[in-house]
C-alpha cells in the first residue's frame, strides 16, 4: 500500500469539504472492504480516505410502515440483516446482505459501498433494484436522488460526480400482497462471487400478477432490470408457462462474458433458472403477505 492520508468526517458537510480538498485521489471510506483492498493491491491510486462512519446519518437505519425503509450508506451488513423490520418486510434484501463475504466482512461492509463499488456481480444490487430502492446522494451542488437501477454505468463505474457520495438508501414500503426473493448461484456454499444472481419483487391479486420487477446480476456490465420478464408475468396468472416465459426473457436479456467464474452459455442458462426460482419464491411470499 502507498502512504496515504486518513481523515474522519463527523458531518456530511465536513466530508464534502474533505473530499473536495483531497481532489481526484480522495475516496470515501465506509467499511473499507473494497477500497482498502484496492489500495493495498495498488489497483487504484488513493491519496486520501475520508471516513464517513462517524456521521450519524450514514449510520442510521429507520423503518416506518408509511415511509418505508432508510438505510444509511455505511450501516454494516450485520445490522441490515439483523434488523427485524428488514427481515419481515424486505426478506430479499436480508437474504442478499447475509451472504456478502463472511462474518468478518459483514461487520464492516455496507450497502452504500456495495452499490458504489458497482461490481456487475454485487449481491445487493439486484435486490435493491427490484425493491425500487433510491440512492440519496450528497455533493457540492446539494442533494439528489438516483434510482439504484440507474446508478451503475459500467463495471466499477457509477453516476457519482467528483465530491459526491451516497448518504442513504431509501426503500419504499411494498404494496400489499407483494413478495420479494433473491437468489444467486455459486459453486461453493458460501464465500464466493455470484456466477449469476437474480431478484424479484412481485405483487399478486389473487392468482394474477399485478406488478413485477425482476433484476439479474453478473450477466452484463452492470446488474440489469429485465422489463421483458416482468411483462411476461404482469396481468397474467402465474403458471409454469408464464414463469418459463419470464425465465426465457431473462436469458435473452443476459449478455454475459466468459471468465474464470463461468461461461456465456452457463450464465445465460442460470439467468433463466434463477429468475424462475425467484419468481416462484416471491409469489410464495406474496401469497402470505
Amino acid at each position, binding site marked *: *500500500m*502507498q*502512504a496515504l492520508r486518513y481523515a474522519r468526517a463527523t458531518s456530511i458537510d465536513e466530508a464534502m469539504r474533505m473530499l473536495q480538498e483531497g481532489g481526484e485521489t480522495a475516496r470515501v471510506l465506509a467499511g473499507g472492504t473494497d477500497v482498502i483492498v484496492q489500495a493495498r493491491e*495498488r489497483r487504484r491510486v488513493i491519496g486520501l480516505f475520508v471516513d464517513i462512519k462517524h456521521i450519524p446519518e450514514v449510520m442510521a437505519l429507520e423503518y416506518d410502515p408509511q415511509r418505508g425503509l432508510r438505510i444509511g450508506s455505511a450501516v454494516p451488513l450485520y445490522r441490515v440483516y439483523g434488523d427485524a423490520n428488514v427481515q419481515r418486510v424486505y426478506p430479499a434484501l436480508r437474504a442478499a446482505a447475509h451472504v456478502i463475504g463472511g462474518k468478518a466482512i459483514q461487520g464492516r461492509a455496507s450497502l452504500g459501498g456495495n452499490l458504489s463499488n458497482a461490481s456487475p456481480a454485487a449481491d445487493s444490487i439486484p435486490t435493491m433494484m427490484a425493491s425500487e430502492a433510491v440512492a440519496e446522494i450528497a455533493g457540492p451542488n446539494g442533494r439528489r436522488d438516483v434510482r439504484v437501477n440507474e446508478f451503475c454505468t459500467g463495471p466499477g463505474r457509477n453516476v457519482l460526480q467528483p465530491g459526491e457520495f451516497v448518504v442513504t438508501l431509501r426503500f419504499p414500503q411494498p404494496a400489499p400482497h407483494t413478495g420479494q426473493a433473491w437468489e444467486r*448461484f455459486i*459453486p*461453493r*456454499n*458460501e*464465500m*464466493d*462471487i455470484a*456466477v449469476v444472481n437474480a431478484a424479484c419483487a412481485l405483487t399478486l391479486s389473487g392468482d394474477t400478477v399485478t406488478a413485477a420487477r425482476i433484476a439479474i446480476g453478473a450477466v452484463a456490465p452492470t446488474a440489469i432490470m429485465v422489463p421483458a420478464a416482468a411483462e411476461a408475468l404482469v396481468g397474467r396468472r402465474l403458471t409454469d408457462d408464464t414463469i418459463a416465459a419470464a425465465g426465457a426473457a431473462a436469458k435473452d436479456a443476459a449478455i454475459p462474458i466468459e*471468465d*474464470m*467464474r*463461468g*461461461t456465456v*452459455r*452457463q450464465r445465460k*442458462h*442460470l439467468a433463466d*433458472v434463477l429468475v424462475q426460482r425467484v419468481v416462484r419464491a416471491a409469489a410464495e411470499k406474496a401469497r402470505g403477505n
Partner: protein
Amino acid sequence: MVATPQKPAYKVIGTRPVRPDGVDKVTGRAAYGADVVLEGMLFGSVLRSPHAHARIKRIDTSKALALPGVKAIITNADFPAQESGTLDLGEGSANPKWLVDNVLAGDKVLYHGHAVAAVAAVDWHTAEEALGLIDVEYELLPFVINVREAMLDAAPILHHDLRTNVRARNVDTPKDRETNVAMHMRVEKGDLAAGFAEADIVIEREFTTSQFHQGYIEPQNGTAHWNHDGQITVWTSTQGAFSVRDQVATLLNQPVARIKVVPMEIGGGFGGKIPVYLEPVAALLSKKTGHPLKMWMSREAVFQATGPTSATWNRVKIGAKRDGTLVAADVSLCFAAGAYPGSAVGAGVLCALAPYAIPNQRIDGFDVVTNTPKTAAYRAPGAPAAEYAVEATVDEIARALDMDPLDLRLKNAPEEGDTNSSGAPWPRIGAKAVITAIKESAHYNSEIQGDNVGRGIALGFWFNGGMESSSSVAVNPDGSVSLILGSTDIGGTRASLAMQLAEALGVPYEAIKPQVVDTDSIGYTAVTGGSRTTFAGGWVAYDLGQEIRKRLTERAARIWGVDISTVTYHDDAMITGTDKDGKEQRFTFEEICRRLPSTGGHIAVSAMSRRNTAGPAYAGHIADVKVDRETGKVTVLRYTAVQDVGTAIHPSYVEGQIQGGAAQGIGMALQEEYWYDDQGHLRNGSFLDYRMPVANDLQPIEVILVEVPNPGHPFGVRGVGEVPIVPPQAAIRNALRDAIGVNFYHTPVTPTRILDELLPRA
C-alpha cells in the same frame, strides 16, 4: 475400526492425548515464519513477471534504488553461477541451475509470476513501492500452457538446451533435438499383446486433470541474517530444515557449516514447502545490506509462483476377461512439469496400477515443461491423476461386465508376494483388507435414494517413504524425557513420536517433552514428507527407547552392585533385580531417574535411522452425491474414507490426516483448478476464485481405520498422510456416473462442465 489380531496391547499407542503444540496454536502464540522479528530488520519484496514467456533484455533498477528507504536490489546475476547437476531435496530432486533460475529468473521469464528481481527496504510498503520503479524490458515469446500442446513438434520451446532423457528401451522417442519433453520413462512386465489377446473386453479412455494448488494457509516466507563473520541464519516455515540448508548452501555456494536453518511452526505444506523460493533471496539481500531481512509472499504470489501440481493428460487401456479378471493394461501419463523439468510423473507411473495385480502391463510416463509455475510435490505426488484415470476406466469395465465395482476390485487386488509394476514382490499389504472393510461398512450397505443421486467408489495407493531421521533424548532427574527432533511438525509428529518413545520406555506420554530444533542442534533429518516421519522417526524413538532401557538397566546394576544380566527392565518401566546382598530391589522410572546425577551422571543418547521397510498404504473411498440438474451443482451427501493405516499411533491425528486428504481430493474432483486466460496469465490466483471447498461445502468425512501392521516397523506403522488424497477424484466421478449417467473425463467436474453435458447442444 477393523483391527488385526497381531496388534499387541499397547499402553500409549492408540490413545488420543492432547497435542504438545496445542495451547500455543489455539492462543495464537505459536511463532510461524512471518512472526520472526529481529533488531534492525529490513523487508524484502519480489518483482514478478507479467508475461508467460519472455526474454529479459534489460533490467534498470536506478529509479527504484533512488527511492528513499530502498537498500538493495538483486537479480539472478547476483547469485553464483550454477552448473547443471542434481540436488536431492528429500522428496524429489532439483537441478541447481533450474532452481536458481526459478528463484530469480535468468535470461528468460518462463511463467506469469516468475520472480525477476528482489528489493530490500526499510519497510514492506517501501519495498513494494520500489517494485513499480524497476524498469524491465521484455521481448515477448510465444508460450504454451497445455501439456498436450507442449509435446507437439511445433510448440514454443522453453529450454533450447533441453533434450529428452529416455529411460525406456525400444522406443522411438528422439533424444537429440529441441523439445519440451524432459523425460520419457517406461515400466513394463509380462506380454502386453498376449494379455490383450486374452481379454474378452477392452476399454480405452483418455483423461485430463487441471492444475491444483496445495492451498496451505500460511504463505511462503523466509528471514535471513548473513552475519559479518560469514555465518548465515535462516528462519523459515519448511517441511525440511536440512533440505533448506542444502538448497541455500548450493545456491549461495557456501559450505553447510556456515548455514543454520531455524524451522518455524508451519501452517501447512502438503509437499509444497520443500523447494526454496525466498530463503536464498533473503540471505543475499542480507549480505548486500548487512541487515537481517524478512520476506513473505502474497497469496497471489503463492498461487503464481509456488508449487502447484501437474496438469495432466493420460490414457488408459485395460483388458478384462468376462469373469472380471484384469489381464492387460497399457497406460500413458503426460505430466506438465511447469517451467522446469521434474514433475511427479515417475511416482504416477509406479502407482497407476498398484491397486491391481495385472500380469501384463506397460506404463509410459512423460515429463513435459510448460509456461506455468514449476510444480512441486503435493500429497502423494503423481498418484491422484494417474490412479484417477485407472479407477475411472476400471469402473467402466465393471459396468460393461455388469459386475459390482467392489467385487471386480476385490477379485484383482494384490496381496503379499504378488509383484508390483516394476516386478518387485509386495510385502504385507492391506489392499484386500480395505476392500473387505468397504464391503462391510454401514455406508456401503446403506440405500441411496432419490433422483440424480449416485454412489461411487475408488481405490488409492501410495508407497510411503523411509529415508533418514535423527533424534536425541535426555533423561531428566524428575523422570521426564526430552525428545529432540529434526523433523518439522506438520501433521502431529511431535505427538506421534513422543507416543512411540513413551511406548518404548513404558512411561506415560506426558513424561516425554518433544521439541523441534534447528539444523545445528540435531543430526541430519530428511523432510517431513512422503508419509515417512511417523515411520522413520518412530524407528528412531524405538531405538532410543531400547538404548535408554539398556543404560538404566546398567545403572541399576551398578547401584545394586550386580551384573547387568540379573536386572530386568519391564514394559511398565519398572526395573527389578536382586542386590549383592541377595535382597530384592526395584526402581520405578522416576526413582532411578532421581538417582542419575549422584550415580554417574545424567543419560543422553542420540540415534539416526535409515530403513527402507516403509509399508505401502491402500485406501478406498465411498462417495454419495446429488446433482442439481438445473444448475450443475453437486452436493456430496455422504463420504467415507477407509484406509489401511498399519497401526494408528494417535487415531485422532490419523483421522484428521485422512479427512484432510479426502477434503483436498474432493476439491480437486469438483471445484479447484488453475484458470489461465489467452495471454497465459493465471487469473484466479486467490482463495476467492481458486475455489477450494469451505467447511460447509463438505459433510463430515467418515473414517474407517483398518490396521494391517507393517512388519518393517517395531510398532507396525505405515504412513497415513498422503494416500487419502488419491481416491476422491475417481470416487466422485464414478458417483456422478451413477447419479446422472454421464462419464466425465476431466477433473474438476465443475458445474460449468456438468451443464455442458446436460444442456441440449446449441
